[in-house]
């Protein structure tokens, strides 16, 4: 008897994967990235009318076309990676810190303040120690406020950290007026443009690294990556925060002081974000404005999660994003598109990489599946 055709079978079913080999998940990511590049190419081709080959060449030129461009690409990659590293302990603890933006900004404000008030009176080494301390402390404070509230009163950290971003932006606006170089200009301009006091790239390190000023950024972030990896994987603190992230009940059961861990971890995360603020202000922009953080606090969240907190993956994803963004701005200027092309490209890449995350966890089955007679 054959009644099979009477029984309707769902067209597609989503089934969770058991386990996926590293090679296979790599392959899925690789396909996703290629697909996103192809789609970017097609869209840019439609927009500009230029051949895809030209478009891709322009992208590469935009990212690596000159020494200056290489410097920008490396700097932006390291900064994005740095923020991702800073956010990692918080996210590993499942503390949804979307306040990275604000923590970077207050770190930047603190750096700028030290540069402005102490730049010409302190010896260089003291100036840098003060800038690093002030920026980290500012970020730390911005980070532990929501942590304390969460630990003590179980407030929702998502809203709290988000709101603190706006306060940080308002503070920045205030200080840009407060410190404005020319009355009424509404901007600070380049800080210490004559003396270059507190400029990371041209101060005490310049003798060692010469013109290759990105080496310093690379070194700092590289060391930070290694330290973060060790902290998370091999220290008692790292173990505690991952237990808290997995299950607060289990953490309490084994006697971990959950409140303390939440506050401590956010102090670290916030301080590192503040430190990145220092790197931005002292290392590249030499000024402060509301666009200093440049959305890195948000983009870095995706970088950290996509990489599953693995520093090497974080680096690759940061590089890919920055590479495409730099390429897109080049295309925008070459073909007279506006800056939004940048956002479109970033959006496409993120969409594909996020989708690949879905496919590494699930597979689709069409109709009656395997072992069908």
């Amino acid at each position, binding site marked *: 008897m054959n009644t099979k055709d009477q029984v309707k079978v769902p067209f597609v079913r989503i089934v969770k994967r058991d386990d996926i080999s590293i090679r296979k998940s790599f392959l899925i990511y690789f396909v996703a990235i290629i697909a996103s590049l192809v789609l970017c190419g097609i869209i840019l081709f439609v927009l500009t009318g230029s051949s895809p080959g030209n478009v891709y060449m322009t992208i590469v030129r935009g990212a690596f076309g000159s020494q200056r461009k290489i410097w920008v690409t490396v700097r932006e990659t390291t900064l994005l990676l740095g923020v991702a590293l800073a956010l990692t302990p918080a996210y590993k603890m499942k503390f949804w810190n979307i306040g990275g933006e604000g923590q970077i900004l207050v770190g930047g404000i603190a750096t700028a303040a030290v540069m402005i008030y102490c730049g010409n009176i302190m010896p260089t080494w003291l100036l840098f120690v003060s800038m690093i301390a002030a920026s980290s402390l500012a970020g730390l404070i911005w980070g532990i406020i929501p942590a304390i509230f969460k630990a003590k009163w179980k407030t929702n950290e998502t809203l709290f950290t988000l709101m603190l971003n706006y306060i940080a932006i308002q503070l920045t606006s205030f200080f840009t007026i407060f410190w404005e170089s020319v009355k009424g200009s509404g901007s600070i301009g380049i800080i210490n443009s004559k003396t270059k006091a507190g400029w990371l790239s041209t101060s005490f390190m310049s003798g060692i690294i010469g013109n290759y000023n990105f080496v310093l950024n690379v070194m700092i972030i590289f060391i930070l990556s290694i330290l973060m990896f060790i902290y998370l994987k091999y220290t008692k603190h790292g173990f505690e925060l991952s237990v808290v992230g*997995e*299950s607060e009940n289990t953490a309490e059961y084994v006697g971990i002081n959950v409140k303390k861990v939440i506050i401590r971890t956010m102090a670290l995360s916030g301080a590192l974000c503040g430190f990145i603020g220092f790197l931005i202000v002292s290392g590249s922009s030499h000024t402060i404005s509301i666009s200093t953080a440049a959305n890195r606090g948000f983009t870095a969240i995706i970088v950290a999660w996509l990489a599953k907190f693995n520093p090497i993956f974080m680096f690759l994803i940061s590089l890919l994003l920055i590479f495409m963004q730099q390429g897109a701005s080049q295309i925008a200027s070459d073909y007279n598109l506006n800056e939004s092309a940048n956002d479109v490209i970033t959006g496409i890449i993120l969409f594909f990489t996020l989708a690949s995350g879905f496919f590494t966890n699930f597979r689709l089955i069409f109709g009656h599946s395997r072992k069908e007679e």
Partner: protein
Amino acid sequence: MEKTYAVEFKNISKYFGSVVANSKINMTQDRGEIRALLGENGSGKTTLMNMLSGIYFPDEGEIFVDGKPASIKSPSDAFNYGIGMIHQHFKLVDIFSAAENIILGNDNGKILHMKSVIKKLDSIVQRYGFDIDLKKKTYDMSVSEKQTVEIIKALYRGSNILILDEPTAVLTPQETEKLFQVLRKMKEDNKSIIIITHKFHEVFAISDKVSVLRKGKYIDTVNTKDMDEMKLTEMMVGKKIELNINRPLPKNIRKRMELLNVSAKDKYGVTVLDDVSFDINSGEILGIAGIAGSGQKELLEAITGLQAIDENGVINYISDMGNAIRINGKTTMEIKQLGVSLAFVPEDRLGMGLVGNMGMADNMMLRSYQNGRTIFTDRKAPLMLAEKVKNDLEVVTPGISSEVRKLSGGNVQKVLVGREIADNPNVLLTAYAVRGLDINTSYLIYNLLTEQKQCGSAVVYVGEDLDVLIALCDRILVLCGGSISGILDAKNTTKEEVGLLMTKKRKEQKIS
């Protein structure tokens, strides 16, 4: 003409990834029959029933209802075929009354005629002899009443095939008997009933036939009256098993802990422990019986420092030298630092005792990560312990680094118990240590607890199966509504006596 069955499974298979949950199952059921579905955990009983009730869709094979092929893609499809399932976890809205919960989601017609609904419900209640107040709010109901609501809901929607997934796990013996009476009436009404259970005496009390599954495969269906416990166990496990719990006489009994006037409130200010006083002795197993939620969890958590107790209560640990160390008001870490060796196997294994996303080694480290003076964790000792637990307790796992949430329930419990007894604790607290475990693992756990008792540990066993409590423990403390309703000598008590004490307070309240 072929005989038509109420339900017929033909070559049903279901896969989860590489796991074969059901493999080519052929099974039939008549109308007016009560069928017990028996099998160890992971044998695929619930998966099979979930396919009948529309939660999963079979990967292969077909289901026939009343002789016609049925395509059951969702629970609402299942209702249309007259199939209703009572799950272990009830799906009721707390602030709704019984009647409101029953009609919830029933979208026949635009206007709700509550009066005619109540009338129809009343006739169902009368017909099958349910004991329920339809206007009672869910939050006021006992577990047994909630279950009744679920059953009436299925009947109201016209179910002719009723599936009950371990319905008696949460009931007292008295409530179970009431449920069985209802089921017998339904059977007279020509309904098909499938009941998933672990308890043999219930199989014999209620079912006409028994179907046995083992490791996803269908073994056989037999007439209940031709079977006995040994035969059924053999069918389930595939080999003969001794079903005796060894209870050596306690030796060197010594007071290890004392609780005096312990009361506690939950976070909403509701009293969960009410003036509880008793001793825990080393060298014996103290059983704790009670309906789910009678304060068992809070009692164990109070002892381990996780639940705050009222000021005038005292929890003392008696050291080997005979000194009383007061441990209430201290955190878990502080209690540990006082040198109190306390182990705790909590009810929620993956949510509290272990971290599901970590491997065995990291889970061993949960107890020892603080050891050593450096800021770094010692990863070697937990690795060795994980290896030892894996070998000693025969934990089936792809490797000690693979995540424990992927292990079966029995293996998860072996990991947890193995870790907790690793340091030879002086006090071992266990909550529902064998819940959801197969027969083999359950007996392994009983033996481990008895071993600990013989080593001089003070063992506390919070359990739900009264037969096991009576066979395993030396004394049984019965909790009812947060207070002690009796402490019994396990050798000289009966299930009925324990069952009565479990509901004592509720009855008293009804009278007054």
